[in-house]
């Protein structure tokens, strides 16, 4: 009987703590943590590596850009690639340049090469004229992705202003399409 009286509050406390933790976790994940309050903001200057050499983000001023940093081991990146391929026609029609860069050191974990990754999930994009594939150098990673998110993208308008920062393009396609269709940029 004594055990019962002492045991119940402990159990309730554990259940309560677990509930609070779960609720907090759900609240955080449901709202997305990358929501950046200081937007729009000027996209910082950056250079990145492509198969054709080093390129600068400043070259794309005057065009809408989706700058996406992915890791080849990441499930949401694979799903994102698949979703972007499905909406490639809209992206191309709106003149959006998609700069898809493999994260610096692949986000800290080994995975397939970027080419194999794209071939597996969205082969057609390798030949798409509005897609540029490359890698993120360390300097750019420090500036754009210091926390090393495995999957993060920046929507940059014609004036070079970052309009949104998000992750998982497959789950946030509505936001991408709104940016694509926004005439003001």
């Amino acid at each position, binding site marked *: 009987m004594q055990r019962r009286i002492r045991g119940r509050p402990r159990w309730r406390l554990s259940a309560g703590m677990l509930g609070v933790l779960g609720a907090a976790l759900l609240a955080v994940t449901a709202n997305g943590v990358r929501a950046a309050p200081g937007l729009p903001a000027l996209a910082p200057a950056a250079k990145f590596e492509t198969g054709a050499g080093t390129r600068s983000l400043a070259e794309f001023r005057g065009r809408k850009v989706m700058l996406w940093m992915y890791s080849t081991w990441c499930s949401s990146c694979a799903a994102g690639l698949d979703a972007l391929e499905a909406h490639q026609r809209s992206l191309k029609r709106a003149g959006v340049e998609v700069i898809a860069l493999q994260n610096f050191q692949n986000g800290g974990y080994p995975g397939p090469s970027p080419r194999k990754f794209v071939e597996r999930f969205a082969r057609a994009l390798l030949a798409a004229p509005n897609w540029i594939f490359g890698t993120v150098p360390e300097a750019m990673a420090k500036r754009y992705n210091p926390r090393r*998110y495995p999957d993060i993208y920046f929507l940059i308008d014609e004036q070079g202003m970052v309009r949104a920062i998000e992750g998982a393009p497959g789950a946030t396609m509505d936001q991408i399409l709104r940016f694509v269709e926004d005439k003001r940029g």
Partner: protein
Amino acid sequence: MNAIVTGLETAFERRGYRLFGVASFVTGLALYLMTLPSSFTGGRVGFVALRYLDIELVVFSIVMAALIAVLLPLMAFQIRRGRRVSKTTAAGGIAVGMMAPVLCCSPLLPLALGFLATFFPAAAGAVGWRLQGFIATHQTELFTVASLLLAAAVCQNARSVARGPSCAVPARSRVFRTRVAASAGAAEEYVDER
């Protein structure tokens, strides 16, 4: 094995526990179906995750929800009778199953590691960043571990239900045990004398 079956029969003999099991299954299934694919949505849990369900995730969702549906009534049965519940294994199974997909490819782990890095920069830098990649590439194994933990928790609790209320004297110290043994010996001598 017999003890487990007996424990399950004892707990589910009453209609209330059977209904609680069904409710737990429905709730658990909905929760797992919306949580397990969240590695594809960057940690977003909810209806958005449903479109990323595949056969493997559906099977794991059903298995884990079924185990929860058995486990929760067993635990409730014991709690209502004031008995001790084996909850560590169960909590481990639920935590691994729910947390693995949420942590993979979401900002949660990088944020937590960023915070940790302020106190332990070396540990967070060297090991921490690999954790997310490991979780992402070993999801099937992690879901299997979660299912096994839940199954183990079901077995533990079913055995406990089958054992019934325990009257064992806790053997706290050698002196205590000696006294208990001495009392038992004296009792036997008393019975022999009679």
